[in-house]
């Protein structure tokens, strides 16, 4: 017993006084080295004593095992039991697993253990939040970002958690421990599976490198989607055996196996409404109106770009045709209206307003690279673009003002602000196309560059700055912006 205590004290002293490793490629594991060189031999002696019947040696032996294998102990014992603070402190010693972001890894362990509690515990969540926002700035890495996402998930903000956790892969591998990367993939796969976004699940877990859990779920997703290259029965069972949480995943694996067995083959029902029989119309007006009404009442998930294109062209046949104006003018004369121009203008505004709301509300992208553009849809796309640009520009302006005023916020909040801006940018690009992308990039490039330089040079947040430089470089390359490419290439080369 005394030997064990002496070993612990010695290892702590060594970890405190030992040389700090600053090299990016060298493992920074002074505590672990001390534990394995001092405590583990002591543990072997204690183990021999336990085998000889000295059961009072079991507690110190367990303590040594916990300190020697901190992440394994945390993951198998502390997280399932829901001990966030103990999980945090023990993971502070998991230098091998979370090399590059040890502090973030500890908060991650605590946040995960907190999620496993049946009752919410806001005090502990706030305590963990504070660990991420310490007065003495800590460099935020991939594990810390994942921890932020898990804390958001614990507070019920699944969308916010998803947005943050998706950015873990943006962090350079030197500041993002492999464990954090795999856990982020596993959480994202679980989240997508719970939403039924199986296509997403299939993509997240491609390759064993994404982690065993995400790898299994990817195979399940491919089977559920009936993809021709989905792993067969043997492949599924193999992944299930390799992956953790076998009891929990058995049900979904069985569902995937049922699909492979053909249990879900669709049988045509006579009750089902005939597909493609939606529009009954005998002239351009009725066609456009019928398509318009049909699209407005279509469920969100089933609205596709093709539907919008068909509707846009149906309205083109009226709004771009002088005959429509003539018909309305004749009718206006007959009923004593002032003129048809106002009615036609309001019709155009209504149609474009409805389509804009559809695009924004149902997240359907308008491709501006199509071969035969619809003038109506082109106007809608411009409306969508302008509406989304306002959001991105005002967020970017607010960021710019804060940088100019040197108003710092904790690194984790800087990252969340950047994530929100990037989501708005990606969303706009998806809905309004390349035109939006070019205009928005022109606006946010200098602002994000300033933020990244500030984080990189002055605030010890080199991984975050580097991730932003990389994103800016990717965008500049996609948009063929030579000056931005030159600048960001230089910035990325500064490393982490």
């Amino acid at each position, binding site marked *: 017993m005394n030997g064990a205590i002496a070993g612990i004290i010695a290892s702590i002293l060594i970890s405190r006084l030992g040389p700090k490793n600053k090299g990016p490629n060298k493992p920074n594991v002074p505590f672990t080295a001390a534990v394995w060189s001092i405590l583990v031999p002591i543990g072997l002696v204690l183990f021999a004593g336990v085998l000889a019947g000295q059961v009072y040696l079991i507690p110190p032996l367990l303590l040594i095992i916990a300190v020697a294998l901190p992440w394994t102990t945390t993951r198998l014992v502390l997280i*399932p039991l*829901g001990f966030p603070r103990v999980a945090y402190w023990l993971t502070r010693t998991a230098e091998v697993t979370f090399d590059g972001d040890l502090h973030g890894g500890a908060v991650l362990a605590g946040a*995960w253990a907190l*999620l*496993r*509690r*049946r009752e919410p515990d806001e005090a502990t969540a706030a305590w963990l939040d504070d660990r991420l926002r310490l007065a003495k700035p800590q460099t935020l890495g991939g594990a810390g970002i994942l921890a932020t996402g898990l804390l958001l998930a614990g507070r019920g903000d699944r969308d916010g958690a998803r947005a943050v956790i998706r950015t873990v892969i943006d962090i350079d591998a030197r500041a993002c421990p492999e464990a954090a990367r795999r856990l982020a993939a*596993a*959480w994202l796969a*679980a*989240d997508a*599976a*719970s*939403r*039924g976004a*199986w296509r997403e699940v299939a993509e997240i877990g491609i390759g064993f490198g994404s982690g065993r859990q995400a790898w299994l779920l990817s195979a399940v997703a491919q089977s*559920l*989607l009936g993809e021709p290259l989905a792993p067969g029965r043997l492949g599924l069972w193999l992944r299930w055996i390799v992956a*953790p*949480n076998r009891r*929990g*995943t058995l*049900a*979904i694996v069985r569902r995937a196996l049922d*699909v492979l067995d053909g249990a*879900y083959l669709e049988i045509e029902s006579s009750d089902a409404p005939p597909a493609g*029989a*939606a*529009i*009954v*119309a005998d002239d351009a*007006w*009725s066609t456009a*109106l*019928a398509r*318009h*009404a*049909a699209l*407005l*009442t279509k*469920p*969100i998930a*089933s609205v596709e770009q093709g539907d919008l294109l068909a509707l846009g062209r149906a309205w083109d046949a009226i709004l771009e045709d002088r005959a429509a104006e003539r018909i*309305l003018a004749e009718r*206006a004369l007959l*009923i*004593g*209206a*002032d003129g*048809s121009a*106002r*009615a036609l203008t*309001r*019709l155009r*505004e*209504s149609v474009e*307003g409805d389509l804009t*709301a*559809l695009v924004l509300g*149902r997240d359907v992208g308008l491709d501006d690279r199509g071969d035969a553009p619809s003038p109506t849809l082109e106007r809608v796309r411009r409306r969508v673009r302008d509406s989304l640009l306002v959001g991105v520009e005002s967020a970017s302006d607010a960021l710019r003002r804060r940088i100019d005023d040197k108003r710092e916020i904790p690194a984790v909040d800087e990252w969340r602000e950047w994530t929100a801006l990037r989501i708005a940018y990606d969303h706009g690009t998806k809905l309004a196309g390349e035109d939006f992308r070019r205009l928005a990039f022109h606006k946010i490039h200098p602002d994000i560059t300033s933020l990244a330089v500030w984080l990189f040079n002055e605030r010890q947040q080199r991984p975050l700055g580097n991730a932003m430089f990389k994103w800016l470089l990717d965008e500049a390359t996609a948009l063929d912006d030579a000056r931005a490419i030159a600048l960001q290439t230089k910035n990325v080369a500064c490393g982490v």
Partner: protein
Amino acid sequence: MSEASPVGTNAIDRIRDNPFYVLGLRPDATRQAIERQGTKLLGMLELELKSATSYPTPVGRAARTPEKVRAAMAELREPSRRLEHEIWARLEPEAMPAAPRDVAPIDDEIAPRAGQAADPWPDAFVALGWRAGR
């Protein structure tokens, strides 16, 4: 009635509350026919006759109220407004296949289907060890 300004109002409301559909008339109805039909419907609603309490539209059936009928009559008395409503009422109320019963406005989520292979897996977080089971 939300028909005062078609621009910016809910798109489904614009079709559902179109005065011609509310009155059960086609766009070529005369002014006399509109007044006659409006008065008749108000009388029927006064007597709470079931046949008058709803009407078909291309986006499904809608409830008819005396306020809606009066507003529809007022809208159609103004020729310029009538011309705008005529455009949207060109579609026969029954020209569309019956809209889903739970036709939802733009923001509503689709209801999950039962028994499909690719249905969501709501227990994923618990099964995969991210949350405690109930």
